């Protein structure tokens, strides 16, 4: 069992290092193949682990590889645990990454940095595995930062592009802000429980006072907010779409961004003790769901639309997790991973076909040339919209049910409304890309379908997006003990049915509206003249609520200017100048007073006499005071001065 664990963990690392050996050599296809094989190995091992855990019931695999840090009372090992939560996540990670790896062999075919790509991608998988499998917060943090690093490397993969490197840095730095919160959370855990192991810490949590726990919960959640791109740290996710599309599929849809959700689920024992924080998380999740969906409505960048939808879905997950429905959150995480990865990979096919054109308005009618892609993306969008019987239906409706059952009707309402928006923008995208006029012809592009093997590689995701719903029951049974899960039952079946059908109808209407509006022949490439484009709401949404602008104007620029001021003014003009000033004063005094040494003997003699006379007057004053001190005292006391 341990061997399997190690294989699952280290196969990606081996893959990464192997690929890294070839980073400076020209493209070699075998690098991709071997990397994919190794990731697949990891996948197989994970499957075996899953199988064994499912078969053997509650048992988890826990190993401690070696000590990492030990000082004072602190003891942090490299410990790994495979239990039902982590194995689920591992399955998602390895499965999606295997598929993405294989897909990338085709996608990155023409890129000269092919080898480097696989090195980074596998490194990411390794980091993600560390994150997921660690049995303590410090180990989690290693993975946490590791995925951040790989994300940086992959977003900025095409580093000759200014926008890509900018986005990479933005992602890294924004994540760092959140990581600080996480770090503080870890410190709090350590100083309050004396350990960072989940097990030990959870034990102690039960005895701590709620205030401390609240702080711990808040700070850890700040970490989660960054990685999962929750408001207000969300801007990096959309910008991260500068990276190659497989990266978006793997990192920014399926795995890394869900790490925040995973953290909350992993720490469920903590969050279940502090329902207030949970409610906050849920509210924020619901808000982000709506907020992101609204931005997706008007965006004109295919990948960004999908990215916003990811953001929105992350909001759903947090809503669920915050309400205590950890298993639902996890399940939605899994299901979302499948259909969102599929959606991204499909988008990747489209981009390939369109020579990296991203504006769906410049596409249209692609279903004729890209039939399979069309099918896949449509199904993925259906799953995303939550249409029965696709995966999204099972996971997302459960979240709605959970919100309803917990009597958080506002959250429920928001989420329900967002579901409609989701459906609308998803099919707006599908409609714009695959239906209507073939607008791309204006731009002289001749699209073609992706490689066959890429489509084959995507097929498992397609199948899972379609049928993942059936896994809900077994998943629930598997996970129920460890996440203290319970099914959400609406009190009456009538209500339940009304809800289900109502939701479906609402969503279906949204889809139809989207088709009606965008699948027709009158769609043109917008040129900024139409009334709607000039409306305030459109601009507001199109500019992402002016939040990036706000960040740029009020955070980045002032930071830069302040830095300049600190350097040029404070450091150079004040601090350094004062040091030089002291030296200058000393030197200047010497320079000015050296005239005293005029070389004139008469003056010299005079100085001597002056010195003597000064001393003499001091002596006389002192001597007289000494002599007449008694009289002086008398006089002063007479004046009442002493």
């Amino acid at each position, binding site marked *: 069992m341990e061997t399997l664990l190690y294989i699952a963990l280290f196969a990606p690392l081996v893959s990464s290092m192997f690929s890294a050996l070839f980073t400076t050599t020209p493209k070699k296809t075998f690098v991709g193949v071997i990397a994919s094989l190794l990731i697949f190995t990891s996948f197989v091992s994970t499957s075996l682990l899953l199988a064994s855990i499912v078969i053997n019931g509650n048992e988890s695999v826990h190993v401690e590889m070696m000590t990492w840090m030990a000082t*004072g009372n602190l003891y942090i090992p490299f410990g790994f645990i495979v239990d039902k939560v982590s194995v689920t996540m591992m399955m998602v990670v390895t499965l999606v990454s295997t598929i993405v790896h294989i897909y990338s062999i085709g996608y990155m075919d023409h890129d000269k940095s092919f080898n480097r790509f696989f090195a980074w991608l596998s490194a990411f998988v390794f980091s993600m595995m560390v994150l997921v499998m660690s049995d303590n917060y410090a180990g989690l943090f290693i993975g946490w930062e*590791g995925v951040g690093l790989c994300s940086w490397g992959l977003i900025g993969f095409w580093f000759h592009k200014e926008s890509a490197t900018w986005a990479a840095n933005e992602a890294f730095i924004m994540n760092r802000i959140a990581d*600080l919160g996480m770090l503080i959370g870890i410190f709090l855990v350590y*100083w309050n429980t*004396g350990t960072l192991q989940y097990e030990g810490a959870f034990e102690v949590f039960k005895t701590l006072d709620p205030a401390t726990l609240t702080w711990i919960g808040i700070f850890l959640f700040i970490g989660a907010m960054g990685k999962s791109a929750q408001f207000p740290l969300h801007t990096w996710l959309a910008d991260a779409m500068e990276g190659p599309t497989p990266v978006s599929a793997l990192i920014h849809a399926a795995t890394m961004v869900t790490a925040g959700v995973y953290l909350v689920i992993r720490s469920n024992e903590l969050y279940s003790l502090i329902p207030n924080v949970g409610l906050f998380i849920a509210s924020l999740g619901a808000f982000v769901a709506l907020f992101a969906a609204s931005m997706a409505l008007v965006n004109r960048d295919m990948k960004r639309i999908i990215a916003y939808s990811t953001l929105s879905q992350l909001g759903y997950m947090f809503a669920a997790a915050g309400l205590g429905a950890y298993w639902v959150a996890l399940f939605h995480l899994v299901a979302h991973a499948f259909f969102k990865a599929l959606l991204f990979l499909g988008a990747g096919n489209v981009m390939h076909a369109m020579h990296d054109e991203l504006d769906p308005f410049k596409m249209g009618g692609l279903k004729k040339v890209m039939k399979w892609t069309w099918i896949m993306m449509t199904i993925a969008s259906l799953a995303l919209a939550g249409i029965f019987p696709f995966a999204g239906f099972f996971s997302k409706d459960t979240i709605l049910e959970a919100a309803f059952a917990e009597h958080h009707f506002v959250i429920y309402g928001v989420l329900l409304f967002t579901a409609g928006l989701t459906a609308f923008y998803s099919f707006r995208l599908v409609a714009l890309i695959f239906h209507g006029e073939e607008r791309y012809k204006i731009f002289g592009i001749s699209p073609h379908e992706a490689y066959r093997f890429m489509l084959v590689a995507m097929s498992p995701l397609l199948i899972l997006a379609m049928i993942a719903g059936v896994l809900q029951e077994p998943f629930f049974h598997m996970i129920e003990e460890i996440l203290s899960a319970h099914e959400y039952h609406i009190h009456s079946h009538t209500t339940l049915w009304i809800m289900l059908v109502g939701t479906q109808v609402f969503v279906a209407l949204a889809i139809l509206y989207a088709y009606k509006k965008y699948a027709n022949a009158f769609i043109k490439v917008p040129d900024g003249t139409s009334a709607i484009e000039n409306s305030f709401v459109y601009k507001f949404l199109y500019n992402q609520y002016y939040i990036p602008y706000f960040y740029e104007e009020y955070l980045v620029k002032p*930071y830069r200017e302040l830095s300049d001021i600190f*350097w040029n003014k404070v450091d150079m003009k004040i601090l350094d100048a004062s040091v030089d000033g002291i030296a200058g004063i000393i030197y200047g005094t010497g320079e000015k007073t050296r005239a005293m040494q005029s070389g004139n003997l008469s003056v010299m003699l005079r100085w001597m006499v002056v010195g003597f006379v000064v001393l003499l007057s001091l002596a006389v004053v002192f001597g007289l005071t000494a002599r007449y001190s008694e009289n002086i005292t008398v006089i002063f006391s007479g004046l009442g001065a002493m």
Partner: protein
Amino acid sequence: MLDHILSILIFFPAIAAVFGFMIQKDSIRAYGISVATIEFGLSLWLWFTFDGNVSGMQFMENLPLVPSFGVNYILGVDGISLFIIVLAAFFTMIGIASLTETPNEKNMIITILFLQMTMAGVFAALDAIVFYVFWELSLVPMLYIIGAWGGPLRIYASIKFFLYTFAGSLVMLVGMLFMAYFFYQATGTWSFALLDWYRLILPETLQLWLFAAFFIGFAIKVPMFPFHTWLPYAHGQAPTIGSVILAAILLKMGTYAFIRFSLPLFPDASAAFMVPIAVITIIMIIYTAMIAYAQKDVKQVVAYSSISHMGVIILGTFALNVEGITGSIFLMIAHGVVSGALFLLVGVIYDRRHTKLMSEFGGLAHIMPRYATIFGIMLMASVGMPLTINFVGEFLSLLGFYQQSHILTLLAGTAIIVGAIYMLSAYKKMFFGDVTKEENKNLPDINKRELVALIPLSVIAIWLGIYPKPILEPINNSVEAVVRLMHNKAQSELAKERIPNLVKERASVIKKTVIEEEVH
């Protein structure tokens, strides 16, 4: 030989340097490398024979120097100093090995060997005056290196470096003399031996004054805000090897001295000054990081980043608990490795282009992928990526200080953010984008000589990030002894409260072992 290994470590390079005058110019480099390698071997031997389980001083040597005034030649190492000595020898070796064509190479190598003597001396000295001797003496070779092989402002920079540090350490000397006088008053004999001083419990007001005196000397050396302005000049003007050794070792003298002198001698004052110093370090961390962001010269970025990191080290030191101090010592080594490597890397590009302005570069990752990779590794180490050497130190330092103050740690923790900002933007400016400058198009990638220095550093940076135990453990044992001493000496309520009592915490240690047993 083992009884005198420290003396050998100190004086071997000096004697070798004297003999170096006889060597013909063209062969001096090989001589320098071999001497430095032997020195490094000796230091490794020292490490090998060092007993990591002993918390006290080892390899003690004691020779009367001016016994009537209490000045004795006392040497010794413990876990705190051991690794810095090894690091110093290592960097001397690497520095000489990676030395590029320089005019007057012979003088340079001889100077570096003398510098090695002073560095080993500072960290091995257990007598305040001997410590001071080496401390001051280290200025001279550095002065020469900066002044003779530096950039256009080299003379200004070297004078500034020398005088600033010199002035500070003279104040420190007065403090030392006062300390000795106090010892004299208490016992009737003069003594400058550190271990003697440790036994002294000073009244609190006196501690405050003495702490301040020592602080000025150390703070300028570190350098702490607002005494840091010499550093950018020194780094900016120094040749590569000067910057490397300055950043890697010489700055550590200050932080090391805090742990060796300030904490155990003045526990009450340390506790009392903890918050002000923490505030200074936070200013250092954020302020200098911002300045680093504003720089146009990549070397200055690294220089200011050094100050920023030193802030974290000091913060860890003034956590006054085992975690923090251990972390700060580890971070000293880590920062030595990383900043040393970064300066070497800057030197690589400077040798090729004779400019350090970032605007002159751009897109180097296309032309020099290997260079970009190693730079990237060091960049990530510098920003404190886990599994690199810096993270361990920063994590422990911040963790330690968190026990003392939440909000200050939160502020200091911004180090990981601001650090990422300047480092990444610098990296972006240099390596990303398209190659715009014609001169850059044909730059050769990193060569073997440079790799000789950089590969070991990269390996260390990652190896110690993954497996810091061999270093962390001896440090931990010695630090525990220091903390115990401090706690026992502490008089004021504040100090008692801030300096943990290790005996009391035995309970949680037991708890930890229980957990370990459960795990297995």
